[in-house]
């Protein structure tokens, strides 16, 4: 293992750039979250720091660092500090397998615009997502506060419940691609054959699960203010709290990138052949990287849009949706997809599957659900 080889340096530089982009996007997500909330509620939003309030994230960061860093008495000090660190760590690790672009050739050397191209790519994402709950769980327990503990326990059961439906949604994608590698999944979707057209149901399931895994509204029960004060971060202050909130925004961006990779063709975009012919391969690849980031930002916007539109679920509704709603639905999706691949018409099977599902739900509703007499 040569430590200072060209490949190693290129990878290190690339991972550094990805981290910088992720952190920058996460910082500015806080600004746009407020701006979008303000727009939806007919307010102006932050407009004091710089033109249009564009320096607001900087002001927030300074505020976070200047506040008193408080560790409650009788708390478990090391685990209290480890909580936000773990949250940040697991949030940043997922981006390693997201393919941000095809290969570029600079100065005769070919670089791969992906952290690591392993043949278990999507399992890596899945594994890191399942580890994401540790930060919340440990932080909530170490705070020595019952509200924090309740928030942590809610986070744990919520994440485990929604992982199952998420995994089943991914299985339908894997049936198409026949590979666990994220790169292979993207390459299977080039030229507009995006998985969203074949997997509309799977995408909806995955999106809902992504909301639950990121602890975003309407599934933000671990930090439910009306019941639990601040949930798992009740006792946190200063930048430790900042890291928890920051990790949430990073998770949003990365899950957007994963959704774009799985369902929206990754770095594919319309007119890729034209750009390649006109400006060469490298420009086309970098435009593709921009396209992937643009798609992820679109998902970040969807996250915010939903947050300021929908109210929060009740906890039993959340569990009911996960176990009794999404898991049977995703199993149905897997069966329909497998059938479609068997008869060689995946698109028709997908559409027919959705129609059959709607008809079935309608018939079930008419026959078995007792209506309240108005």
């Amino acid at each position, binding site marked *: 293992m040569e430590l200072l080889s060209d490949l190693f340096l290129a990878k290190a530089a690339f991972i550094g750039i990805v981290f910088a982009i992720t952190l920058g996007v996460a910082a500015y997500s806080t600004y746009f979250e407020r701006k979008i909330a303000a727009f939806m509620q007919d307010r102006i939003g932050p407009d004091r720091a710089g033109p249009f309030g564009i320096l607001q994230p900087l002001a927030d960061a300074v505020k976070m660092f200047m506040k008193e860093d408080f560790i409650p008495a009788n708390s*478990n000090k090391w685990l209290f500090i480890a909580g936000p660190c773990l949250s940040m760590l697991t949030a940043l690790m997922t981006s390693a397998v997201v393919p941000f672009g095809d290969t570029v050739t600079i100065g005769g050397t070919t670089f791969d615009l992906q952290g690591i191209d392993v*043949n*278990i790519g999507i*399992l890596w994402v899945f*594994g890191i997502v399942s*580890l994401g709950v540790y930060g919340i769980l440990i932080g909530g*327990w170490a705070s020595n506060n019952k509200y924090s503990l309740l928030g942590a*326990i809610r986070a744990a059961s919520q994440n485990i419940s929604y992982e199952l439906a998420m995994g089943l949604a991914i299985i339908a994608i894997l049936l198409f691609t026949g590979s*666990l590698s994220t790169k292979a999944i993207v390459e299977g979707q080039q030229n507009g054959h995006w998985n969203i057209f074949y997997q509309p149901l799977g995408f909806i399931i995955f999106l809902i699960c992504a909301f639950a895994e990121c602890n975003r509204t309407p599934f933000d029960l671990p930090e439910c203010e009306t019941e639990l004060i601040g949930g798992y971060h009740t006792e946190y202050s200063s930048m430790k709290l900042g890291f928890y909130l920051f990790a949430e925004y990073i998770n949003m961006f990365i899950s957007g990138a994963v959704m774009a990779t799985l369902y929206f063709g990754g770095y594919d975009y319309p007119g890729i052949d034209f750009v390649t012919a006109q400006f060469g391969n490298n420009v086309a690849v970098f435009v593709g990287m921009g396209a992937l980031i643009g798609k992820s930002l679109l998902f970040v916007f969807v996250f915010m849009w939903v947050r300021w539109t929908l109210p929060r679920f009740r906890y039993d509704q959340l569990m009911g949706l996960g176990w009794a709603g999404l898991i049977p639905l995703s199993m149905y999706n897997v069966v329909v997809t497998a059938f479609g691949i068997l008869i060689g018409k995946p698109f028709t099977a997908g559409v027919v599957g959705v129609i059959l599902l709607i008809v079935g739900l309608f018939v079930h509703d008419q026959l078995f659900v007792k209506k309240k007499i108005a």
Partner: protein
Amino acid sequence: MAISNIWYFLSALTLLSALMVVLAKNPIHSVLYLVFTFFCISGHYVLLNAQFLMAVNIIVYAGAIMVLFLFVIMMFDLKKNQPESKSSLTKLAGSVVAGTLLVLFIALLRKNTLQAPLEANFKSQTGMVETLGKLLYTEYLLPFELISILFFVAMVGAVMLGKREAGERNF
């Protein structure tokens, strides 16, 4: 850095964290050390070029089972439920049993020199997910299907146990 050095470092880390699982006073710390042990074992899988096993080990053990362990232990009031410390006789018995086992293992290892696999027969792709999947669905199809039935039965059983019976309280 040579690969054998990484192996030594990882093994030392694994043994140390596994020891800490037993020695830690606080059950939460024990569980966290156990999670760390699983990570070290996953590192060993990577060294063996078995990436699929590494990912599954993290997903199943570190990601799901250990979270549930933590979940349950956090529900306890640890101050009330301190296990009483063992009597010295129990400690002595434990040490004797463990020591005997250690001596037995060392004797076994010294008697039988383990054969290193021949380099000519070595296939680096054995641990890859494609190879594993083909093997599971051809040569080991029947055991694989039987295990899936076993899992299914266990799942149904868990749901049955967790189900509230009619007239039972809501919480």
